[in-house]
């Protein structure tokens, strides 16, 4: 019965003759709906529903986006940073351990301290990352598991290498070389996988940061309805503008404009975070790891001179890759340091070619600002600063994107509710006039 009425309603409302038809009082609802006040009431309900819906859907989507940005800021990005720190700390631990052997039986205090600090950073990074990955992220958990297991094996091998070296046994260098191979061939690739997967998660969160077009379209649609309603009312009342509807229209226009502006700002902020932060950050991390490994290779090649071909070759390969990266993505001071380091490395090779092993070892070890140690530290510092700077840029972009959306979520609800009230307040007096 009722459904029949409802389904017939559209044809009735379109029929103008029914408006003046005094008959049909046995069906009061249909009659009411067919009357001008009835149509006004329906219009009011539709309009209130439209503006409320526009406000609330905008609010929930924006709140969802904002929460995702908050998750990115407080969880996903710090997790990627922890993975980056694990990666960097492990490779500098290996460089420090290797450097210690250049000085003979006892490593210098500062080199030993650097090794201890790097192992500490790697361990804390592992704990931070383990507490951060999702419990169902089995792949990351397995990588973390492998990393902590192999880190224990690695430190054991380094301890064996040091004990033998102190006792004056040449096998110390063999253990050092095996530990370094474990680091470079098994541990660092796992750390890199972990870092890449977390950095990818950051990148994909950044890509989905803006409000969707559908939300903006909803508010524009509500605005359109309001304008049509205004036209309808102008025809049936003698006033030219209904202040309630005008206010509601303005509010919807504000909502649409706010959504668009916040959307543009937030998307631009996350694009900056990605293009000026995340992507160059990934390059700088790769460059730093290459530099660390090249330094370890330089020293191992010297320690095993006369019996090892691998370290020398891999030094050249890594430096070539590093130079390529720096060509594409220049880092202040890094290129100069690489050139200086290569000059120092050539000096080492020249000295070795003339049989001056102690001289070559000194060039690799001493504090001369033109020699390998100083140049490597310059390069490492430049890359570390770049990593810090790019990370700050990335976080800044994420925070800006968050701020752009921050007030919009409650704001959109408020706009929707106030617009709804304005519609009611605008149409109610017109409705009363018919009684």
């Amino acid at each position, binding site marked *: 019965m009722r459904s029949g009425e409802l389904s017939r309603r559209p044809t009735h409302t379109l029929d103008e003759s029914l408006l003046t038809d005094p008959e049909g009082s046995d069906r009061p609802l249909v009659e009411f709906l067919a009357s001008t006040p009835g149509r006004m009431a329906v219009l009011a309900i539709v309009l209130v529903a439209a503006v409320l819906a526009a406000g609330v859907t905008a609010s929930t989507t924006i709140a969802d986006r904002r929460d995702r940005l908050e998750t990115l800021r407080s969880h996903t990005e710090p997790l990627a940073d922890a993975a980056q720190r694990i990666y960097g700390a492990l490779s500098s631990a290996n460089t420090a351990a290797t450097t210690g052997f250049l000085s003979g039986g006892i490593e210098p205090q500062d080199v030993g301290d650097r090794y201890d600090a790097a192992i500490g950073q790697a361990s804390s990074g592992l704990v931070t990352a383990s507490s951060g990955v999702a419990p169902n992220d089995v792949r990351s958990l397995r990588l973390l598991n492998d990393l902590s297991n192999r880190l224990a094996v690695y430190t054991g091998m380094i301890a064996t290498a040091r004990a033998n070296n102190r006792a004056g046994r*040449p096998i110390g260098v063999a253990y050092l*070389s095996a530990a370094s191979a474990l680091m470079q061939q098994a541990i660092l690739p796992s750390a890199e996988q972990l870092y890449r997967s977390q950095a990818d998660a950051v990148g994909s969160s950044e890509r989905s940061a803006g409000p969707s077009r559908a939300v903006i379209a909803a508010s524009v649609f509500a605005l359109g309805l309001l304008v049509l309603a205004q036209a309808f009312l102008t025809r049936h009342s003698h006033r030219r503008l209904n202040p309630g509807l005008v206010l509601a229209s303005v509010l919807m226009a504000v909502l649409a404009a706010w959504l668009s502006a916040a959307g543009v700002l937030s998307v631009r902020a996350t694009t900056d975070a990605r293009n000026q932060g995340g992507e160059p950050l990934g390059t700088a991390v790769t460059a730093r790891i290459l530099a660390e490994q090249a330094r370890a290779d330089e020293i191992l090649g010297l320690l095993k001179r*006369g019996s*090892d071909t691998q370290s020398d070759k891999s030094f050249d390969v890594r430096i070539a890759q590093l130079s390529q990266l720096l060509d594409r993505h220049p880092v202040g001071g890094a290129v100069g340091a690489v050139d200086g380091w290569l000059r120092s490395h050539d000096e080492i090779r020249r000295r070795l070619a003339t049989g001056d092993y102690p001289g070559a070892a000194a060039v690799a070890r001493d504090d001369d600002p033109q020699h390998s140690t100083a140049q490597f530290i310059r390069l490492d510092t430049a890359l570390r600063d770049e990593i810090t700077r790019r990370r700050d840029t990335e976080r800044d972009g994420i925070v800006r994107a968050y701020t752009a959306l921050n007030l919009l979520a409650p704001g959109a609800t408020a706009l929707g509710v106030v617009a709804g009230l304005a519609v009611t307040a605008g149409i109610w007096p017109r409705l009363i006039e018919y009684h």
Partner: protein
Amino acid sequence: MRTIATMFALAAALLAGCSNVQPLTEVSASLTMRPLPSGAAVVSDVTGAPVESCDATASLRPSVPGGPVVEEIRRRGRLIVGTDQNTNLFSFRDPVSGELQGFDVDVAHEIARDLLGDTGKVDFRLLRPEERIPALQDETVDLVVQAMTISCPRAEQIAFSAVYFEASQRLLVPRDSPIRGQSDLAGKRVCSVIGTTSLATVARVAPTATLVAVPNWDDCLVVLQQRQADAVSTDDSILAGMAVQDPNVTIVGPSLEAEPYGIGVNKSRDDLVRAVNASLERIRRDGTWMSLYRKWLAVLGPVPGPPEPKYRD
């Protein structure tokens, strides 16, 4: 106030049947294993080395130093010697002092004493095994003193001095190992260096053994200490360099193959070969050889004396 809130939260959680408690994820233990040294591999396609078919150990008769090459070295004032720094007891860098030392290094110093009148006038060049013969051929170095076995193929490319050390290929095993000779090697893992004649000899005498090939001799000791191999096989002189680094290993078994060491010289420099042989004659005669042996190689046990030289002219 906070306690009450917590109790409410707990009650709510209990009412909800604890559905919001995340179960702890158990990560299964990964296998803890020490890796083989970098570049090490289990090899299966090594063809057993044939027994040497010629005798390349006969050298040129010594004469008083004075040919054109010796004159040139004297004008230069330095003797350039190729060696390496990772063959313990023969040529190695003492990790504590940073000095190059060993049996070969001392022999080189003795030759410098005879040629230049000063044991210190030696420049060492560090050579990888495959660089030794080219370095002699292009005269980058005057001599190669680097535990180098005299073999027929090598003798076609370079000249050798008279034999200055008789090594023999044997086995290094942990003290408690049941392996006492080549017949015990069946099915065991044996370590040697990639591309050496030692590896090929093991393949010949113990065809069922698994061969672990590593880049450096010290890597073999690492592999043995980590129980990744049951035995190491190479020249006893090199095994001695491992045995002195670990009191828990010992050299066992009869000789698998004789390894006569000679000093390498460019094939066209006959006067230098004769001068080196004269120097070797001197250190054999005046007791220097025996004192060097006692200084570096006592771990190999007593020897009656230095090897007897053979000359072909």
